[in-house]
């Protein structure tokens, strides 16, 4: 199995943990993994991304344009920004909730995440928009956004990782007191979840 996965969003949304969990789950299956992510200044509310590559024969962690199997968009506009990396027929899993950049609030221009979502709908054949607003309310924490998207991507089959694979990674890499909440987030979009 060879997979190129891109996670993108706004600094502070939990992309780093999500990419660690994907890597841990893949390694558990005995697969080589490489990844790269934004660390440093941009983490303070700027655009951030992670590239994750799974499979044999990898040389570098960086993904070429048009070769990502999956994009996990933690924010609609950031998903649009990374869209040139998605391969034809690739899967995009995107959170419905937009985050207004300070620059947009200041200029009064506003920022319409709906525009971003409708662009994604037009461009991406396999698009999954997750109603993370409702999900976070139901689960009772805005912090589970990353696991919600991870779950949705896993259920779509595009990650090549199962719920069980990710569940184990959560148990190993997330403090125990958050297990329950995160496991509920993981299962939230599962077709069997009521």
């Amino acid at each position, binding site marked *: 199995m060879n997979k190129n996965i891109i996670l993108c969003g*706004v*600094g*502070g949304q939990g992309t780093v943990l999500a990419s660690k969990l994907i*890597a*841990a789950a893949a*390694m558990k299956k005995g697969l*080589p*993994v*490489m990844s*790269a*992510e*934004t*660390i*440093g*200044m*941009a*983490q*303070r*509310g*700027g*655009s951030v991304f992670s590239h994750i590559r799974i499979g044999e*024969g*990898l*040389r*570098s*962690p*960086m*993904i*070429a*344009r*048009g*070769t990502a199997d999956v994009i996990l968009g933690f924010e609609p*506009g*950031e998903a*649009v*920004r990374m*869209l*040139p*990396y*998605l*391969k*034809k027929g690739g899967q995009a899993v995107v959170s419905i909730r937009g*985050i*207004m*950049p*300070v*620059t*947009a*609030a*200041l200029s*009064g221009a*506003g*920022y319409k995440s709906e*525009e*971003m979502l409708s*662009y994604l709908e*037009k*461009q*991406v054949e396999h698009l999954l928009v997750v109603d993370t607003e409702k999900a976070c309310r139901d689960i009772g924490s*805005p912090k589970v956004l990353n696991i919600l998207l991870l779950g949705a991507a896993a259920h779509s089959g595009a990650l090549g990782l199962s719920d069980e694979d990710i569940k184990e990674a959560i148990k190993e890499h997330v403090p125990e007191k958050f297990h329950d909440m995160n496991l509920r987030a993981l299962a939230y979009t599962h077709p069997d979840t009521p």
Partner: protein
Amino acid sequence: MHKEFLMGNEAIALGTIAAGVNLVSGYPGTPSSEVLETVAKRRTSDIYVEWSVNEKAAMEVAAGAAYTGARSMVTMKQVGLNVASDPLMSLEYIGVKGGMVVLAADDPGPISSQTEQDTRHFSAFSKLPCFDPSDPQEAYEMVQEAFEYSEKYETPVFLRPTTRVCHGYASITVKDEAEYKVHNFEGFTKDSGRWVIFPRLSYQNHIKIEARNQTLADDFSEYSRNRIYQACRKNVLLKKGIASGGISFTYALETLEEAGMAKLFKVSTPHPFPERLALSFLEGLTEVLCIEELDPVIERELTYICGKYHLPVKIYGKLTGHVKNAGENSRDSVQENIMQFLGLASDSPNMVSADSALSTDSMPSLPVRPPVLCAGCPHRASFCAVKAAMKGKKTIFCGDIGCYTLGNAMPLDMVDTCLCMGAGLGIAQGVGHMEPDTTCFAFVGDSTFFASAITGVINAVYNQADMTLVILDNSTTAMTGHQPHPGTGRTMMGEIVQKINIEAVLRGIGLKVVEIVNPLDYEASVECVKRVAWEPGVKAIIFKAPCIALTKPSGSLAVSPDKCINCRKCIRELGCPALVISEKQVSIDSSLCTGCSLCSQICPVNAICPPAEKDKGGVCHE
């Protein structure tokens, strides 16, 4: 041996521990910081680790350890090397007894730095060998080899990873603890002919260094990480080769593995350059493209070798305009450079072709999303207070390096200058001497204060400057990941030690006016600035409030829609990411708000308060 998923910096740290290092010192700086942190976290009991006060101190501490025969490492980012260059340039002549690795991480882009300087030049300038890893696994092994070379030649050596190697992760094979080398050392032996630098000694050692580097260049031609990959059968006829190093080499290799191999030269020791190996690479070629980041180091070396040996090979790269000369390379840019150079179409069956990417023609305009001060950051409050207090006055706000550099963004617009660590103080003094009617401020964080601002304060007091020093004390080194420093009272060995008190330091230097205020108390802060800035000479305000990333938020505030007149003063003045406009009304994003209450203090109609009070129709912040 076992497998671990490690960041490049963690891999370097584990390699360093496996090499039997005895002491690691450093100063935080992106992208280097995780090396020392990981050594501290994973160290065996006999390794000493410290965050030094700055890179110069760190370099000297590591050199001292290596004088005893111990193995030492010093870590820093590329601009930190400028600070450490004084001891380094002399250490070149003295050398070491135990292995010493100078880890200087470069930052092509630059992504989190002031400069795109290239440590490979520093290596040539200081005549010290340089190792340039291309991925985490190689970095893990290379650092262990670097210690061996350092000891063999009794010289410090550079390990120079770049951001994508430092912060790239890979599942790599590392040694178990039982396989770690134990490095025993004999201790310092007095020998003033060896350890005391004098002009005569420097002259003699200069001769030895030049001879040694000739030997090293030959040695490096045999080093397995400098390597030639042969062209595939169909590409041999092209007589074209690619030379590369570092992360760019991995992009080049991947591209060539897909397009068909061309002759490829991997340069892992850019200094001393493996000349003999380069000659066998150049043999039979007519053209070479150099793919590297930052400066054209490999390109210049190959051009020099072609001149020296009268080789009819054209060398292309940054100098010839074939590769862009600034910013980082990407997988895509390298592929484009190589395909163009080899004259290959980019739609060969194995290649990623550009048209498989989606068209971006109809893409909606994307918002720029630069980094901002966090919601609840006390620096925002400090900047607002100074801005309000000095409104209408002729001022200059000299900034410095840290999270608070982000105070330059609109709407705060409170950083008029920023140069390098600690420079704001000197700049403020220089401006003040030339423009006596300007009220000069220098802003500096607590970690930067200890690292490089104290000499600036002494300079100001001694030379009768007129300026206000503003210390933004959030009790940590926030930007690089919350490292402890002399003011925090914690060391990397886990000890609780006496805190060095910034106010006492300033009073010791002779400042008469030093006030401490909580910036999140807006009114008190504005009053404090008005009072202090009026005083003659050098005076200081210490804005003291902990970094919001290290404190528990006190709960989100909310805008009361009945009271809000939608004047948007909060948005216009604060630029807080938690303040958003939703359906043309100001509202607070409860997932971001930390309840710092700065907005409620500047709201002219008291429309912002804790949600419970809002529901009760209670009065906000009075």
